[in-house]
């Protein structure tokens, strides 16, 4: 299957943790030869009426995208063991099942609250902020208790995730204390109001984990919240009111549609965001999605105006246009307007004009696949061009799409393409013929 990747910040270091997410298998992912393809698990409501607190907890676990990290390929849901890989070491997600020895079966509601609210394990040790407690600290005690009640229903699975592979001194958990002193503040008055959208965005939804730029120590630059981040060789775009690079031209309803269905007339969710949609936002209720949309649209941008007077080299643009017409116009159309809802339009797109061109380059090099949801099940994909376009050519066409049809963004250089090419994995397609 295609490597679906997510990322979270790691203690003391820039967040480059890549987490393989296992299931369900989206149509469009490729099972290995001979595999038994069991269809994706659709979230279904339990047959018998559920305790309201448990039901609330089940929903909050969706909002928090807990399964996104706490499932491993081939493992039981919530049994943990998913490796969060970073250039500096690997952290494995915890077993959240009710096993008393290896899971959280022995935890009390207070223990659970301490983990969520303060980032402290039951034994008092500090959790690494790969577990996003700097966001979860904003949930209320009632929400924590509901999550706890839900996790009490998860059947125990005896499974001990592998030991973290972190070098000295990062392997010393007390080091997290220093990090916490810099980047973590316990929310003494968590509240679901007055903005339910903000409560999700800054709390359980932990949007900033990807979309907020990080300091060199991996802490959030809170004065630039949601202005776009870098993770695992992706650039997560700005999700604020920035018209050019963010969501300023989107309506709240369009944001909600994107989160619910995985696409709207402006953009398709793929890469890391595909998993967020698959496990979390597509299963959230409409009111919460609308609230998220309202909140994001109100977020200010401090990125400064775009210098629209900088024009890329006309020769580079001409070369980019020629490649674009040959390779890209099939889906995105010569005028870039593409097929909204199927293939995303490029004029005005935040990802396209992001100051950091990483995602644009990577889409061209590796391709990407739109998440399939119940509402929009077709797994539209962009193919890989890394095997047929040189670094120069990718740079030219990336520069072209970033500076055509009213778009403005810094030109892309071949060296940026070359650096990324060395880091990204194999494309999802098979350009070479079967022998």
């Amino acid at each position, binding site marked *: 299957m295609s490597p679906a990747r997510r990322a979270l910040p790691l203690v003391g270091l820039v967040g480059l943790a890549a987490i393989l997410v296992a299931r369900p298998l989206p149509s469009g992912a490729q099972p290995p030869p001979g595999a038994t*393809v069991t*269809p994706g698990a659709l979230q279904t409501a339990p047959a018998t009426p559920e305790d309201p607190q448990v039901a609330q907890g089940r929903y909050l676990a969706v909002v928090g995208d807990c399964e996104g990290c706490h499932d491993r390929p081939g493992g039981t849901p919530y049994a943990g063991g998913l490796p969060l890989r970073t250039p500096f070491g690997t952290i494995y997600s915890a077993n959240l099942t009710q096993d008393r020895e290896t899971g959280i079966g022995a935890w009390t509601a207070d223990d659970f609250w301490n983990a969520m609210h303060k980032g402290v394990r039951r034994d008092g040790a500090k959790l690494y902020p790969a577990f996003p407690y700097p966001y979860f600290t904003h949930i209320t005690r009632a929400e924590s208790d509901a999550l706890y009640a839900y996790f009490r229903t998860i059947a125990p699975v005896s499974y001990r995730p592998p030991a973290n592979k972190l070098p000295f001194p990062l392997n010393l958990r007390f080091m997290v204390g220093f990090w916490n002193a810099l980047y973590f503040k316990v929310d003494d008055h968590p509240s679901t109001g007055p903005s339910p959208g903000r409560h999700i965005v800054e709390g359980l939804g932990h949007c900033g984990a990807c979309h907020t730029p990080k300091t060199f120590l991996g802490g959030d630059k809170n004065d630039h919240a949601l202005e776009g981040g870098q993770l695992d060789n992706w650039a997560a775009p700005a999700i604020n009111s920035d018209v050019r690079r963010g969501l300023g031209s989107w309506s709240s309803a369009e944001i909600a549609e994107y989160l619910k269905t995985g696409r709207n007339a402006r953009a398709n969710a793929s890469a890391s965001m595909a998993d967020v949609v698959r496990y979390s936002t597509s299963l959230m209720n409409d009111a919460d999605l609308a609230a998220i949309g309202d909140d994001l649209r109100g977020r200010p941008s401090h990125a400064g105006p775009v210098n629209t007077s900088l024009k890329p080299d006309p020769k580079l643009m001409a070369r980019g246009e020629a490649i674009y017409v040959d390779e890209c116009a099939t889906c995105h159309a010569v005028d870039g307007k593409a*097929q909204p809802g199927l293939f995303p339009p490029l004029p005005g797109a935040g990802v396209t004009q992001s100051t950091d061109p990483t995602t644009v380059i990577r889409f061209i090099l590796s391709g990407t696949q739109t998440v*399939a949801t119940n509402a929009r099940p*077709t797994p539209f994909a962009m193919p890989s061009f890394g095997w047929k376009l040189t670094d120069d050519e990718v740079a030219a066409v990336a520069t072209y799409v970033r500076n055509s049809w009213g778009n403005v963004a810094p030109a892309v250089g071949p060296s940026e393409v070359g650096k990324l090419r060395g880091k990204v994995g194999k494309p999802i*397609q098979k350009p070479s013929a079967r022998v």
Partner: protein
Amino acid sequence: MAIRNPPVDAVMIGFGWTGAIMAQELTDAGLNVLAIERGDWRDTPTDFSPAYAQDELRYYWRHELFQRLNHDTLTIRNNAGQTALPMRQLGSFLLGSGVGGAGVHWNGQVWRFLPSDLKARSHNLQRYGKAAVPDDMTIQDFGVSYDDLEPWYDKFEYLCGVSGKAGNLKGAIQAGGDPFEGPRSREYPNPPLEMPYALTLFGQAATSLGRHPFPHPAANASRAYTNPLGVTLGPCTYCGFCEKYACGDYSKASAQTTILPVLMRKKSFTLRTNCEVLKINMSADGKTATGVTYLDEKGQEVEQPAEMVFLSAYILHNVRLLLLSGIGKPYDPNTGEGIVGKNYAYQITSSVNVFFNDKILNPFVGAGALGMITNDFNGDNFDHAGLGFIGGGYVGILQTGARPIETHATPDGVPTWGLAWKKAIARDYLKTTTIATHGAVMAHRGNYLDLDPTYKDVYGRPLLRMTFDYTDNEHRMSDYLTDRAAEYGKAMGGREIKTNYRKGSWDVVPYQTTHNTGGAIMGDNPRDSFTNKYLQSWDVPNLFVLGATAFPQNPGYNPTGTVAALAYHAADAIKRQYLKAPHQPMVQA
């Protein structure tokens, strides 16, 4: 010791169009369905990239999407007096393999049969008398009527987002459509594709001759379309790589672009790829199919019990599995006894090239079913009295995209290689179009399928043996159609035309059409047919044989529309009737 799997409600043997349609319908009805596919998993995002889908050498000439003949092929002869030899290279027809089957590399031509096509025997006897149907012409009525199938034709057209113009809406003839078609309950879901220049010229020429041209109904979406299952197709880009290729743009309807995004998400559905069914298992009394035995991807033998068994592979594989499983009585051409393998049929094609001096036709612009067609000489749309044949075919231009290795029509008198040939290609490539005829093949006593006595597959099982040739009926009909095509060609006003009749015996080498039919035919009684009108075996009521296997003869249209309609028709009956009384025949013999 064979592995034994837990039983399932229904097993599909083969996972192309019919397997996907039936699995989708039966899982909707609450059944637990398993599909077993011997080929690979393949899907648009991962396998059919528009960045390399248009690779003529790789896909057409090197057959990447097709059946591997070193694994399994069939033997072929023209008549029972010959020794059949294995087909070692694909030619006349291009068998599929893998998820989606041949429905991945088809053109997307979606037709409905004429109401009279479904009653070929009784209709022709009634109109032309006994002499029109010689004793050796073993044609039959389908046992199902156009009205029975109309809702299911419609359902498939809306599944695929077919682009076309209705010619007959509830009996009212519509301008711009096919006036000969059976009545439709509603318009096509999408408007016709844009017509390129050659097709416009053809339409004008046909109209000037008093014929009735109309745009070919195409499962190549003319605009973005979301089907009733919620699956979305993208607009066709006219890239010219449908036929023999997979679509990278989500524009050509296939199981992948219309059903699988929904079906694969269902918990009640499982697909096993790279698993090949060896035989259908039967109860001791031979009246019940108990499941199948297959080889899994590791080569282990697995027994898969099932309440219902569906043969949903290509027709040649369906028939062979029946024969290998000992189900039904094999057909004997000497006595006319037996039913399995009977009434194998094909189609007959010919063409007329039209060369212009002054018209740039851009033939590389194409789509699989981008065509301007006349049905004036199809089926019984014209009076056959005195012609010496029954049946017919469509005549028109299908501009599927003039792929460069494949496409180099030259006028009469041009050498087939060398400088003069190259000059002619350079002069004519952009200014040539080809009118095609696509004609019916009637069933004949001597055309049939059985097991080869000599040749075996990789597992040591006998290969299927095909015995087939055209008869006088086909040649007379095809020549008649070719003459009509030549009339159109002349009326188009080009510099010259070249007429390519189909002469002599059927030849397995040049590509003609992948429309093989029959071998386990449907009908209204168990003496003359293998299944009833619901594709349910008369003898083994929990066994269903889907696909063109059921056609008693092969009308002049492409088969997929009817293949799908028959599958939906069967699924509907299974849901309404069979599931309430399992293991019972839905039609009393």
